[in-house]
C-alpha cells in the first residue's frame, strides 16, 4: 500500500504528473469514440440508401419483363 501511496505522490509532483496522463488518455479516447461513431453512422446511412436503391431497381426490372 505504501508503494501505491508513493506512486500517487510522485515525489511531490503527483498533482502535475497525473492530470497530464489523465487528460491525455481522456482526449485520445474521446477522439477515438467520436471517429468510431461518425464512421458507423455514415456507413449505416449509406447502407440504408443503397438497399432502397437496390430494391427499387429490382422492382423496375421486374415490371419491364
Amino acid at each position, binding site marked *: 500500500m505504501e508503494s501505491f501511496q508513493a506512486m500517487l505522490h510522485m515525489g511531490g509532483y503527483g498533482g502535475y504528473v497525473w492530470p497530464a496522463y489523465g487528460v491525455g488518455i481522456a482526449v485520445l479516447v474521446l477522439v477515438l469514440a467520436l471517429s468510431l461513431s461518425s*464512421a458507423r453512422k455514415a456507413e449505416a446511412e*449509406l447502407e440504408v440508401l443503397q438497399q432502397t436503391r437496390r430494391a427499387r431497381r429490382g422492382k423496375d426490372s421486374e415490371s419491364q419483363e
Partner: protein
Amino acid sequence: MHRFANPARFLRLAKVILPWSNAVAALCLGAGLYFALLGSPADYQQGESVRIMYVHVPSAWMGMFCYVAMAVFSAMALIWKHPLADLLAKATAPVGAAFTFLCLLTGSLWGKPMWGTWWAWDARLTSMLILLFLYFGYMALVNAFDDPERGHKAAAILALVGAVNVPVIKWSVDWWNTLHQPASVVKMGGPAIDSSMLVPLLLMAVGFKAYWISILILRGRAEIAAQKVRIIRMAQIHAAAQGE
C-alpha cells in the same frame, strides 16, 4: 466511376491495415505507459516530474507531424485533384489538434513546477499555440461551405500557407533565446538522453503514430460514406426533378 476507383482501393487497404494499427497502438501505448510510469527512473534534477515528458514530447512531435501530413495531403488535392487527399487532410486535422492541445496542456503542467510558471510568451510556446489555432481555423473553414468542394479547397490553401509555422516551431529554440530547452532527441550526433528514458519516449511516439493511422482510417471511411450518400441524394433529387 473514376471517382470511386481510389476510395474503393482505400477501403480495401483500410480493412487490412486497421487491425494491425489497432494492435500496434494498444501494445506500444500499453508498454509505453508501463515504462513511463514504472519502468523508468526519476530525473536527477527534475525528480518524478520528468514523467510528463513521455506524454509531452511525443504529443509535440505528433502535433507537427499531423500538420505536415495535412499540408502534404492538401498539396496533393490542389495539384493532382486526388479525390482522397482532401478527405485524408480533413481526417488528420482533429488528431493533430488533439495532440497539439495535449502538448500545450502537459507543457503547462510541467512548466509550473520546473519553470515556476504555467505559461510564458516564449517563441516555442507561442508558435505551438499558433499551430493549435491553425488547426482550429482549418476545421472551421473546411466545414464552412454548403458545397464541400469549396470548403476543401479553401482549407487546403490555409493548410499550405500555415505550413510556414512548422519550421518556425522546430527551430524556435535555436533562433531565439527561449525558456524552452533545445532538442535533445532529434539532433546531430544522436540523442543526448539515456536509453531508459528513450525507450518509453519512442514507444509512446510509435503508439501515437499507429493511433493516428487508425483514426485516419475510421474518419476516412466516414468521409467516403458521407460523400457517397451525398452523390446518391443528388441523383435522387435530379431524377425526381426529371420525372415531373
